[in-house]
């Protein structure tokens, strides 16, 4: 009998333990579903994974709304606002939000129409704060802008230390770098930091570059200001980056840096190198940013046509307007004697690709004589033009 009682009590205690244990466990706060981070895997995009809903009058608008919410949620956004009340009267109430992010990829999970007639979509997006490596890869794939780097010293010569430092940084980002010689740029040296749009365009064509990085550097010897027997130098640099085609200034800054070394010459060189690197890093980011915007909105391109008559000039400019990767066409000039014409365009695809489609459409043949990112010369064969 005693053994039976003992077993019964033991079972009871076990039940008691299990019962209470379960109760306490269920009290734990469920872990809030946080912004899900995605583990990198094969064929799966990296970045922060978010699922959001978007609404609009059509699917495109709803998609855009959902993407914006995804970036706001995962990357974050700046919000600022104010409310002014005077004598119990609301004078001003405003809020402003701004977000910026990079959508690596997204897909629509679901879509439909709500009872109000609004289109809704649910998307899964992989977003990141900065464009980072992807843009560098993109630049490598696309027609790369050719960048000319000209940094002059106060005395008038080219600062090879600064040019090397800046070229190195830009090279890492996938740009083609051209370092013109003193002879090549001597025509522009006088007004290097204040080049007019026309001169810039001429310089761009002469140096065969799409973007010019211009700068002037000067150094100042400070002596042993630290008191450790080291010689110090300070370098000041004025740096600018300008698209030669549009004369758009991408970046402009005044930078300063100091360095110390046993030798005054080395200290001077170190200071120049450091200030150039500092500028190059800022510059590279700005160029990338601008490049992306340009790539999306249309890169300015000047198309020079040879061997054409006015009818064909008109037909080409009209035909280009209807091609999907041409954002804008602006006829610039036509010369009947020389049978040449120029068109300013905004393009989002390589010009040879665009010309191929146009030639197919209008039935002409052409020969590319010179091709750069922002300009090109194309000879058109009149014989093949269809009426």
């Amino acid at each position: 009998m005693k053994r039976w009682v003992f077993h019964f009590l033991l079972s009871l205690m076990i039940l008691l333990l299990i019962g209470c244990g379960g109760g306490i466990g269920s009290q734990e706060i469920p872990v809030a579903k946080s912004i899900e981070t995605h583990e990198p895997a094969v064929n799966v995009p990296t970045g922060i994974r978010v699922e959001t809903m978007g609404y609009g009058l059509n699917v495109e608008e709803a998609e855009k709304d959902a993407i914006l919410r995804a970036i706001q949620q995962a990357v974050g956004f700046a919000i600022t606002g104010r409310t002014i009340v005077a004598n119990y009267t609301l004078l001003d109430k405003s809020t402003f939000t701004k977000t910026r992010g990079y959508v690596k990829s997204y897909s629509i999970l679901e879509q439909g129409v709500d009872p109000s007639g609004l289109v809704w979509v649910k998307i899964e997006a992989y977003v990141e704060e900065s464009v980072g490596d992807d843009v560098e890869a993109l630049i490598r794939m696309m027609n790369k802008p050719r960048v000319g780097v000209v940094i002059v010293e106060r005395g008038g010569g080219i600062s090879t230390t600064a040019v090397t430092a800046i070229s190195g940084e830009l090279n890492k980002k996938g740009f083609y770098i051209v370092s013109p010689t003193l002879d090549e740029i001597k025509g522009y040296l006088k007004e290097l930091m204040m080049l007019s749009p026309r001169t810039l365009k001429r310089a761009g064509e002469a140096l065969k570059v799409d973007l010019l990085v211009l700068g002037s550097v000067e150094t100042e010897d400070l002596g042993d200001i630290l008191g450790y027997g080291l010689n110090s130098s300070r370098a000041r640099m004025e740096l600018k980056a300008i698209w030669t085609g549009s004369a758009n200034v991408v970046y402009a800054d005044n930078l300063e840096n100091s360095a110390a070394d046993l030798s005054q010459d080395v200290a001077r060189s170190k200071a120049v190198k450091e200030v150039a690197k500092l500028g190059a890093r800022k510059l590279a980011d700005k160029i990338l940013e601008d490049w992306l915007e340009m790539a999306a909105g249309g890169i300015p391109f000047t198309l020079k046509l040879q061997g054409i008559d006015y009818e064909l000039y008109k037909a080409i400019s009209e035909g280009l307007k209807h091609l999907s990767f041409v954002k804008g066409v602006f006829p610039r000039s036509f010369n009947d004697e020389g049978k040449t014409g120029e068109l300013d365009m905004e393009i989002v695809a390589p010009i040879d690709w665009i010309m191929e489609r146009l030639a197919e459409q209008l039935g002409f043949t052409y020969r590319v004589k010179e091709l750069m990112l922002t300009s090109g010369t194309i000879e058109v064969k009149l014989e093949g033009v269809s009426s």
Partner: protein
Amino acid sequence: MKKVIFSLMLLAGLVWFFGCSASRSSMPGGIVTTVETRAYWDFYGYAPIMYKQGESYQLALLKAKDVAINEAYTLAVKTLVGFTIEGGSTVEDYMLTKKISRESFNAFVRGMRVLEWYEDREKLMVIAVVRVYKRDLENFLGVPVVTPPGSFKP
């Protein structure tokens, strides 16, 4: 002997009953909260649907939705991050002659989710709910957040 066994069983039963049920109802700090509201905050934003006859109701609805979401964001930032207020009043001869208040906020935030939004056709307004998870906010700020969780309405 039977009495002893009975007493033991009764005692065990009582311990089980009180022990388990007590842990279900008590919360640290004595604040009456649910398990859910301890983990996140919900912020409500309201906006009128500015609809004029002859115009698209859907467009008015979309605009009101964005305003309501912005209002909810604003409330969230003001509650969780804070805001500055400056102002004052002028009283002359026991008469209030001037009273002014300027409220402003400026923050960078992350992890705010638009939980839902819906229209109230009777009141012709849109209500939006923005949810901020405590864990997301603490991760973002890098410090523990002391604001008591719950639902916030303007």
